[in-house]
Every structure is written in structure tokens, then in C-alpha cells.
């Protein structure tokens, strides 16, 4: 195969791959939103005064971190319909990965919050600032900086985990590649192309994070 023949062969698949990559980014973004909501709730739950809420939060984290993400996806997609809750592959996938990420995000938030010295909160409250102002102005800006590296890692593993949704028929990048390979019988080229696309996306994510981190590091 000459280069131009090779190009002619691949070119028709480019839009499909780009579209599938775009879908990966969309799913990743949605999963991040769900996992942040879940993570915030669970992080607050773990700090709750109420014992039951604290235990439920601890159980959630224990369960999610102790079982494979794939099993969690299967439970949501195949298991829930049995309980009368049938979800589309897309929604089930976003939900399952979001629940999965939530446990990790909760732990990240907790460690970030505990890194802010109590005295900084006290000095803010002692000046008459409210709890929410103190959280918004004093605590969160610092927590964000502290947890940024961990959050980036979490976003990157979320992005890679979206390939698990190929098992429940979400036609994201991995499943798209598989369907192409099934008709072309060229696994090496197409899986390599798929890997490169994932690499571009994950690298982009860490680049953005590194940029934010540099911007944030100016007061150290």
C-alpha cells in the first residue's frame, strides 16, 4: 500500500473517529459533573453530625472503591431494570461512572479541606465574615489549588474509564473502533489511532491543569 492508497483508505473514517472522540469528551464532562455533585454530597455526609448519614457515606466510598468500575456499570445498566428502572446505555453509563468518580472526588475534597489550617477560618469568622463567605473567599480558593493535581488525575481516569461503556453499547471511541475493525480487519492501525486520540485528549487535560496550577502557584 502506498501512502496515498493508505490515506484514501483511512480518510473516510476520520469524521467518525472525531465524532466518537467528541462523544468521549461530552461523556467525560457529564461524568465529572455527576461525580462532583456526588462527591460534594458524600464529603459533607462524612462530616455530618448525624451518624446514619456518616455511615452511609462511608459505605458508599468503601463499596465504590472496593469493586471494579465495570461491575458498577453492569449493576446500573443490567441490574436496575430488574428493579423497574430501565435507563438508556448513555444515561446508565454517565450515572455509573459518576457514582464511581464521586467516591474518589469525596476523598479528594476531604483531604483538601483538612489541609486548610483551622486558624485561617477562625480569623475570618473573628472579623465578622459569615460561614459561607469564609468558605467561598478563604477556604475554597485554597482547596481548589491544593486538590487540582488530584482532580486532574481523576478527570484523566474518568476519560479513560469511558471506554468501559463500550461494553454496554455506548458507541464512544472504543466501540466505534471495534465496529470499524470488525468490517476492515485492521486492528493494529485502528487501535493505534484510537490510542493516539485518547492520548491527545488526556494530554490536553493535563496541559490545561498545569496551566491552572502555574497560575495558582504565584502566592507560594
Amino acid at each position, binding site marked *: 500500500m502506498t501512502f496515498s492508497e493508505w490515506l484514501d483508505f483511512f480518510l473516510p473514517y476520520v469524521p467518525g473517529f472525531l465524532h466518537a472522540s467528541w462523544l468521549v469528551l461530552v461523556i467525560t464532562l457529564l461524568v465529572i459533573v455527576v461525580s462532583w455533585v456526588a462527591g460534594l454530597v458524600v464529603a459533607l455526609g462524612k462530616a455530618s453530625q448525624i451518624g446514619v448519614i456518616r455511615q452511609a457515606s462511608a459505605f458508599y466510598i468503601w463499596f465504590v472503591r472496593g469493586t471494579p468500575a465495570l461491575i458498577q456499570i453492569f449493576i446500573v445498566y443490567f441490574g436496575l431494570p430488574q428493579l423497574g428502572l430501565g435507563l438508556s446505555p448513555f444515561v446508565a453509563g454517565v450515572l455509573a461512572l459518576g457514582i464511581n468518580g464521586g467516591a474518589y472526588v469525596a476523598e479528594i475534597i476531604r483531604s483538601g479541606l483538612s489541609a486548610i*489550617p483551622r*486558624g*485561617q477560618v*477562625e*480569623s*475570618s*469568622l*473573628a*472579623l*465578622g*465574615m*459569615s460561614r459561607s*463567605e469564609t468558605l467561598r*473567599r*478563604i477556604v475554597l*480558593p*485554597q482547596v481548589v*489549588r491544593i486538590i487540582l493535581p488530584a482532580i486532574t488525575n481523576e478527570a484523566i481516569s474518568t476519560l479513560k474509564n469511558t471506554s468501559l461503556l463500550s461494553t454496554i453499547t455506548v458507541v464512544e471511541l472504543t466501540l466505534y473502533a471495534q465496529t470499524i475493525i470488525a468490517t476492515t480487519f485492521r486492528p493494529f492501525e485502528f487501535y493505534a489511532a484510537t490510542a493516539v486520540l485518547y492520548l491527545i485528549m488526556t494530554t490536553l487535560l493535563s496541559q490545561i491543569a498545569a496551566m491552572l496550577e502555574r497560575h495558582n502557584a*504565584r*502566592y*507560594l
Partner: protein
Amino acid sequence: MAAIADNAAAPLLRIRDLRKSFGSHEVLKGISLEVRAGEVVSIIGASGSGKSTFLRCINVMEMPNEGFFDFEDFAFDFRAGARNQPTPAQLRALRARIGMVFQSYNLWPHMTVLENVIEAPMRVKRLARAEAVAIAESLLERIGLADKRGAYPSRLSGGQQQRVAIARALAMKPRLMLFDEVTSALDPELVGEVLALMASLAQEGMTMLLVTHEIGFAREVSTRTVFFDQGRIAEDGLPRDVLYRPQSERLQQFLRRVLHEHVATSAAREAHP
């Protein structure tokens, strides 16, 4: 009514029978103290005698279990179920008028010196930025750190950070300042600059309550000294009486110990200037 005459005679801060427990451990066992405007009250006492807890009850960072509290137009009864227990809004308003400085400066590291000082005036008093900046600049000028306005706290020495912390509290134009061992975390050679600032505040008539182990400073600057012993005020009087003619055996012991330590640190200071 004789309200005006009453006001002139009334203390700025009046606390009666204040009690505070942590769990079953009663830390403050009925404290009564009146402070008039312009008084500088130094509080001394052994570790664990409840000095910090008492200061933190004054701006209600700790909620007392019992006691009556009057400060300007605030009147609280801290007993459970009492009608005039402080509301969150009152607490904010109260804290806006009482400045507090801590042993560990507690500046906010993600904000510059100027931002640290203008934050509360802008958020709590809703001052326009320009106005808050003007107040902050004159305070920074006064503490000799005008050139550090754009610096982050991590670039400052401990003494400089503590002076900024004082300026941050002063920017709210408080009627009362609480200082809790504000020089204890400082290297010996940086203590002087912070004490000098506090002395100049006292001279200007700022009402101050200060917990300190610097007996000499208490003697020179305060108008009154209070000795805390196991959650009670054991002695209360002029600094020269309390510090140099202690009545109780426990205060005599305490002073001997503190002065001994002080001599030791002074000697160390001279050995390593």
C-alpha cells in the same frame, strides 16, 4: 431618663458569671469582668487556666454555657433557653466591632497583604473597594509595611505577618481589641516590633485585652492586670500591685516561674543576638 449619664459611666464591656465547659470539663468557672473604654487589661495565668477560652468567649467564637454579656448595644444572656441568646447576625455584627489577633498570625496565604486587610471591610462593612484600600494603605503606612502591600504573606517575616494581622483587625475600626499571646510564636528578635505597635495602640486609647507572658510589657503598657487561676479570676488590680506585690501563693509561684523563664530567654537572646 439618665441614659446619657449612664452611658458615660457604663463600662464598654461587662461580663458577669461567665461559665464555659467542654464536655464535663468546666474551663471557666464564673468570670466577671468590666472593662472601660481606654483600659488596657493584661491577662496572665498558667497554661490551661482558661485565658484563651475567655477571650474567645468575648467575641463568642466559643459559645459560653452561662453568663451575662454587655458590649455597646449588645446584651446577651448565654443560659440555655434564654430569650436574648445571640443570633448569628448579632454575632457577625459583634465580631465586626471586636478585633482579635492570634498567636499564629492566620493571614490568608492566597491573598496579598493589601487583599488581606481590605477583605473584611469590603465583605462585612460593604465598603467600596477604594475606601477599603484607602484605610488599608494608611494602616500599612503606620505599621511600616506600605511597600509590602502587593506581597504574599509567605514572603514576610513572622513579625511582619503579625503586624499585618493587627492591621487587618484594625481596618474594621474595632472598639475593642483582643490579643492572645501574639508574640509567642515569634523569634525573639521580632518580638519588639510587634510589642511596639501594641504599645502605640494602647497610647492612642484603644481598649485592649491582652493575654501575655511578657511580664515587663504588661507592667509598662497595661492599666490593669488580671490573674487567671483554674478558670477563675484570682487577682485583679493595677499591674504594679498584681505583678510586684502578688497576694496569693499561686500568683507568687506563677510569677517566679515566668520570670525565671524570661530571664532564661533574655540570656539566650543576649547570647545569640
